[in-house]
């Protein structure tokens, strides 16, 4: 028998091994496809003239909570475009990123809703507005069930509906014969332990739903033959009566279904294959005037699948469809849906500029961050958009290097010789809105769209990039992989991510997220003082041979070198650990770490070499620092840059004066 001490140690070791084994099992328990909660079988018919979709769906829904459910809540997203009194319209002030929303209306009309026992559910349907109480908003409907659904029980609900598509301005709609059917069918919300999580459609929100299996049949006019793309794999194509075509698509393990059609699409196909990540067919639906950019789209999609997959794990789906919306339908572009993305490009797309690459990589990346790791886009939009922005910058930098500034001239784009670095420059819009809102806010609680975009996308990306620089890239990758492995096909929250950081690094990083995600404070460190003067002999009374006498002792009377003083200040509200670098004459340097908590820190060097410059955060780890121009200070002026730019400015003012006096 083992001695007491060795028995304790063995027991402890055994516990660790068991825990690790259990964790490994837990990590592998969520195999693909996940157990479905909300599955749909939909049959629909597109009326290209009226821009309507008549559909019948059978929802198979499982109560995955521990509480009985006596109601069902549905998203009716298209009702956001039904009139100007909807919450979406009110919050957006009738504008989108391209200007005013058109006077073109959309809606979802439910014509019949019956339960699995045939009970008519429609009479009990009422619209609810859980977020803002807007009585005119019709984007969430609630029906009362004849009897509660027990925990674990599965029910079926049949719904007949007609979706009226608006002229596309925000994601869903039509333009000419182009159709993007997104958020087009009545979709059940997410039932959680605390009740229904089914938010209204807001100007700045996206979506949230449960995983399930989709089987969708789409009846389209013959003019759209071969020009239909959708979530999942196409399993059937056949002609129906009256010259129409029926397409059937199926996909397991997704939480949404989107489809598109356009007689103008030019179809390209390719294959992505990488061991450990997946094997997927790429289907590119491109506008005719962009066919020269086909290879760019496909390369970007492959780079994204590889770049994200190596960090976040396999891509489990058999297809990825990339849609290029036509001119005038920009609102449909730049969006993600399970196994289908909308990109978007311009006819004038210089090869050195990362468009369409950036949007293709970003939306493909959403397959992982949103599609597989299905966080709540209403309540914690940064978990998909911000995280994805961070990963997009990494993949773009690895694949293409820096981006280039573009000068748009009457619709044509010309690259300038100015680099846009990832992520420091691509997320610079954050700095203008740095203190406008707390990042960790529900998507509809931001001051405006620009604040939402700057914080959710850019601040999150910069925060994660800062974390990466503090941890190191290999450790950051371990964090992301642990997070992904734990939460694939599930609904994580920010706390779950913070826990993954803690578990992967063995350190508590809550303080970091408290100061970044949960704060609207700004980060700004500056070098306020950097002086280096010849050392001077001290003056006064000094002890010599036990007596005070005037003048310094011989050892101090002839000082050599320079006395240096450097003061670094924290101008921002948020303290973060930071490094300080002092660079001296002769190539010597001194690097110090400061916890950044106090308002200032002073460094003194006596009788040393002359200081040339002092820098705070010399390696630019703190990407959240809102002003890098004050991060360094020289001891002596170097007027060359200012003089050169003054000369340039005067020269171009001369040219501008000549140009402006030319025409009259």
């Amino acid at each position, binding site marked *: 028998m083992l001695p007491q001490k060795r028995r304790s140690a063995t027991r402890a070791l055994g516990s660790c091994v068991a825990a690790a084994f259990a964790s490994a099992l837990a990590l592998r328990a969520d195999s693909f496809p996940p157990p479905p909660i909300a599955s749909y079988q939909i049959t629909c018919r597109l009326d290209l003239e009226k821009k309507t979709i008549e559909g019948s769906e059978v929802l198979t829904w499982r109560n995955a909570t521990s509480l009985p459910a006596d109601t069902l809540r549905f998203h009716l997203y298209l009702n956001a475009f039904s009139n100007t009194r909807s919450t979406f319209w009110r919050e957006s002030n009738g504008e989108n990123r391209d200007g005013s929303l058109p006077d073109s209306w959309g809606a979802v009309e439910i014509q019949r809703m019956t339960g699995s026992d045939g009970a008519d559910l429609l009479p009990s349907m009422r619209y609810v507005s859980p977020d803002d109480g807007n009585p005119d908003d019709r984007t969430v409907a609630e029906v009362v069930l004849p009897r509660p659904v027990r925990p674990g029980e599965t029910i079926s609900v049949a719904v007949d509906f007609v979706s009226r598509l608006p002229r596309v301005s925000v994601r869903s709609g039509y333009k000419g014969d182009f159709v993007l059917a997104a958020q087009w069918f009545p979709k059940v919300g997410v039932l959680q332990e605390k009740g229904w999580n089914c938010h209204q459609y807001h100007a700045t929100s996206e979506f949230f739903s449960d995983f399930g299996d989709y089987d969708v049949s789409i009846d389209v006019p013959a003019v759209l033959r071969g020009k239909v793309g959708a979530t999942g794999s196409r399993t059937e194509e056949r002609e129906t009566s009256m010259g129409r075509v029926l397409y059937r698509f199926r996909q397991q393990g997704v939480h949404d279904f989107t489809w598109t059609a356009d007689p103008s699409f030019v179809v390209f196909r390719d294959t992505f294959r990488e061991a450990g990540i997946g094997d997927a067919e790429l289907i590119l639906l491109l506008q005719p005037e962009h066919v020269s950019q086909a290879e760019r789209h496909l390369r970007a999609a492959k780079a994204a699948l590889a770049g994200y997959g190596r960090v976040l794990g396999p891509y489990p789906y058999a297809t990825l469809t990339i849609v290029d919306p036509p001119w005038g339908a920009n609102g449909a572009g730049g969006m993600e849906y399970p196994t289908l993305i909308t990109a978007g490009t311009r006819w004038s797309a210089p090869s050195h500029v990362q468009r369409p690459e950036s949007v293709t990589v970003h939306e493909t990346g959403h397959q992982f961050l949103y599609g597989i790791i299905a966080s709540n886009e209403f309540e914690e939009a940064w978990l998909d958009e911000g995280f994805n922005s961070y990963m997009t910058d990494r993949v773009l930098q690895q694949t293409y290097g820096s981006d280039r500034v573009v*000068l748009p001239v*009457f619709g044509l784009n010309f690259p300038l010789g100015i680099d846009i670095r990832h992520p420091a420059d691509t997320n610079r819009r954050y700095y203008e809105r740095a203190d406008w809102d707390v990042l960790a806010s529900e998507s509809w609680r931001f001051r405006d769209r620009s604040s939402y975009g700057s914080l959710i996308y850019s601040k999150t990306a910069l925060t994660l990039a800062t974390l990466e620089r503090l941890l190191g890239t290999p450790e950051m990758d371990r964090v992301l992989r642990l997070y992904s492995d734990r939460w694939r096909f599930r609904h994580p929250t920010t706390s779950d991510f913070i826990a993954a950081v803690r578990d992967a690094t063995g350190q508590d990083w809550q303080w970091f997220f408290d100061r970044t995600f949960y704060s609207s404070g700004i980060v700004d460190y500056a070098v306020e003082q950097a002086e280096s003067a010849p050392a001077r002999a001290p003056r006064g009374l000094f002890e010599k041979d036990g007596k005070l006498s005037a003048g310094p002792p011989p050892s101090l009377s002839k000082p050599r070198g320079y006395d240096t003083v450097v003061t670094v200040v924290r101008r921002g509200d948020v303290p973060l650990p930071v490094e300080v670098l002092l660079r001296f004459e002769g190539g010597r340097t001194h690097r110090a770490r400061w916890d950044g908590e106090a308002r200032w820190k002073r460094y003194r060097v006596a009788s040393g070499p002359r200081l040339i410059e002092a820098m705070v955060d010399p390696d630019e780890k703190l990407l959240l620092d809102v002003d890098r121009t004050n991060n*360094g200070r020289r001891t002596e002026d170097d007027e060359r*840059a200012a003089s050169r730019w*003054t000369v340039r400015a005067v020269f171009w*003012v*001369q040219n501008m*004066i000549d140009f402006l*006096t030319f025409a009259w």
Partner: protein
Amino acid sequence: MVKNRGPRALVCFLRGMGRSLSKPYLAVALWLIQLLLAAVVILPVSNTLHALLDRSPAADRMVANPDFGWWETLRRVHPDLLGNFPDLAQRLLSPDGIRWSELSGLRGIGATAFSLALLAVVVHAFALGGLLGALREPSSSLVTFGREGMRRMPAFLVFTFAALGAAFAAYAGVYVRSGVALHDRVRELDTEQAAIAVTALRLLALVAILSLIKLLADAVRVVWVARPDLPPVSRFLFGLGGAVGRPLRVLGILALDVLATALLYVIWLLLDPSAGGEARFALVPLILAQQVFVFLRLLIKVGYYAGMSEALTRAPSPEYSYVASGSGPSVADEPAVDRA
């Protein structure tokens, strides 16, 4: 009566360039004027940049390569420096154009530059009077330039402001308004190429109108100086008629002027002496190169006006005939102004 077809546009332009080269002080005068105007921004720009860059290590990167991040930070940290001037400049090059209400966002150096442009228009009226007057005299100097400039300034100010107003009206009424009117239709076009083509047509219409305004204004100025014997209204009408009567010739001269100037800019951008920071050009040679460029550009400008004068008036007006009685060859009896 033999119909005199007159010289072609190229001949007029080349003759104009010859006269410009023979009177380089005219280009020097214009260069001085533009330099003095531009000098207004030297102090504010210089002080701001020195304060921002002299002690900043970021300046080293700026010297080597333009730094996008620094530019964005500058705009954010010092919003009053430029205001919305960069955005307006970008919108000027967009299919939508600029609306006058947006000018209220100009600040600091941006507002200074805009005010400078208006001042330049006024000074330009003086300079044109001096230029055209000096071109008319067989022997002239900077004194002639100054005298003629002051003499013509009241009338030329009227012409300049009238042309300026017409140009602004054309921009707002033709370009901007057509953009607004066509906005929804353009978005319904099938392709972006079609949309760009619509923009190009709008732009072409604007350029055509601006060219017409400029040619009419310049023709009036030329004849105003050339025909002091006529009453003002007649001079004005003769000027208009001069341009209307020789449309291809004056348009050709303008086109040659634009082409020559554009070529100069292309050469400058290709050579790009500002690039590479200090590795390629030290500051003094850079300044010299820039001012030589400006001088050459102004030589072409003077050549244009001389060419217009050639096209619209071929012989000196009676006021400038200094032939002494009884000496030298007799002056041929030919019309003072080339009548189409």
